[in-house]
């Protein structure tokens, strides 16, 4: 559905030096897929999203959505979009803002009222409906932005830092919402700093850094079975026993150690030895999710901030 083919973007300000924000990016996103984009600040995520929506033209390469230019696609079909910065006129009331966006999404008179009511209920915006946008808290404004993205029936949904400003409860609700948006003819793109969120929601995650697509990580299927290199082990009755079986174990707490392993086999062998010594294991979990592992390899070890 979405194709980036050798896409590059150079900002050339009148004053100051040119900045290559995105370089040689090639990937595609299929309909029915949830695709994540992860990267540190300044990695090029926002530029990618701006180009995907047709707000910026690429300097090199081509971007297509369903075979057409992004701007043509957006003006024809619309995109369910939440921007990183929620920029809605501060004077508008929340209810009116949803009604306006519903009209722009192509809903007719009766549908507008129904859709606005549904979205307000789904995102608990009823009590804020009469407030002006400038009176809303950051989290409520983010929910309003999320709400407007659900109006209409877009085949492409783009969430740019969708849980920014949301409290843990609403972050969880967002995570429950995304699977309900999945559809065979719809692609969902989520750009986020929150790797845990991407790990839970996305089928694949593109890790970008310094304008380059560094890696695409499969989060489902065979590719997801990547082995973590560090684990956290909690035992009952003192973790010193762990040190004997896992040389180089790092103390985290009284009963917890972080250990490095080379393979699942070596992890299992060491755990078996630990149990054989009479130690009760409470939990064993990867110290980082597999996505975090990839991210650290690509970004942190690559020397980016």
């Amino acid at each position: 559905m979405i194709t980036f083919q050798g896409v590059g973007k150079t900002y050339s300000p009148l004053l100051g030096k040119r900045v290559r924000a995105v370089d040689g990016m090639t990937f595609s996103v299929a309909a029915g897929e949830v695709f994540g984009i992860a990267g540190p600040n300044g990695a090029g995520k926002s530029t990618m999203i701006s180009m995907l929506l047709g707000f910026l033209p690429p300097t090199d390469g081509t971007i297509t959505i369903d075979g057409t230019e992004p701007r043509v696609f957006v003006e024809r079909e619309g995109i369910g979009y939440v921007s990183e910065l929620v920029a809605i006129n501060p004077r508008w009331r929340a209810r009116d803002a949803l009604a306006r966006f519903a009209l722009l999404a192509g809903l007719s008179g009766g549908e507008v009222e129904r859709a606005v009511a549904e979205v307000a209920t789904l995102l608990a915006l009823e009590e804020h409906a009469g407030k002006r946008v400038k009176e809303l808290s950051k989290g409520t404004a983010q929910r309003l932005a999320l709400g407007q993205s659900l109006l209409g029936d877009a085949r492409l949904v783009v969430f740019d830092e969708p849980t920014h400003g949301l409290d843990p409860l609403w972050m969880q609700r967002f995570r429950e919402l995304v699977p309900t948006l999945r559809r065979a003819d719809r692609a969902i793109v989520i750009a986020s700093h929150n790797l845990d969120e991407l790990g839970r929601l996305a089928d694949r995650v593109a890790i970008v850094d310094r304008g380059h697509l560094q890696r695409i990580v499969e989060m489902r299927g065979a590719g997801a079975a990547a082995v973590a290199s560090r684990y956290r082990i909690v035992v009952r009755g003192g973790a010193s026993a762990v040190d004997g079986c896992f040389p180089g174990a790092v103390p985290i707490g009284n009963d917890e150690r972080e250990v490095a392993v080379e393979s699942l086999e070596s992890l299992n062998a060491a755990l078996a030895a630990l149990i054989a010594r009479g130690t009760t294991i409470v939990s064993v979990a990867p110290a980082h999710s597999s996505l975090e592992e990839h991210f650290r390899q690509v970004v942190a070890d690559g020397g980016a901030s």
Partner: protein
Amino acid sequence: MRRARLLAYARWQASDFAFERLPAIAVITAAFSAGAWLAIPGNLRSGLAAGDPDAVQNALRLFANLLATVWFPVVIVASNQIVSGDRASGRFRLLFAKPVSTRRYYLQAFAVNGLLFVATMTVLLAPLALLFRAPPGALQASAAIFAAAYLAVGGGCFLFSALIRLDWFAITLVAFVEVLLDHHFGGQRWTRWLPPFHLVKGRIDALGDGLPADWHELGALALTGLASVAIGVWLIRRRPLAT
């Protein structure tokens, strides 16, 4: 596949005009009107009350002077930052993720603002026209002048708005230079290529003299404005929304 219901959205654009532009237009017009009314000499007031033709003619000139003072700032308030405001604030992002044509959206905003601007000025000036005993037709003539002025100067502002943030400053500068050049070199052929903003003042002066509307000059102003709007719409398509 759905398309934005842009015509239905016009009522929201009208609401934006009413809350964001109309108060400033009303304050400017009211302030200048009050000043103009208070500045009327006592003998002119009594002459007006008595229906003295000379007093009525002088009052019409004062009414025209008021229009000459107020037209430029109110046109700027009505037409500035139509495109650049959304660009600078980032509001375009959520708006134009919807299936809406940016060109049609802003063209409609310009038209809605223009219609409401002319209606607003007519309503605001109606009581003043009564007080000044302006002849029948003066209010319609002033509405025609305001419409032409909105198209000409507002259209220029719209064009600049598609390009830069300080559209109001750019159009003010262009209008100032044009009036200055026309004043000094008005008879020369090359001045024909300048936007004819000075015609607004000329039309207002003619109104003050009780002369009928010159549709040729008003048409020239309107055509200049429509050309600016057309270029502005082309620029909206060409210039990236994000920068």
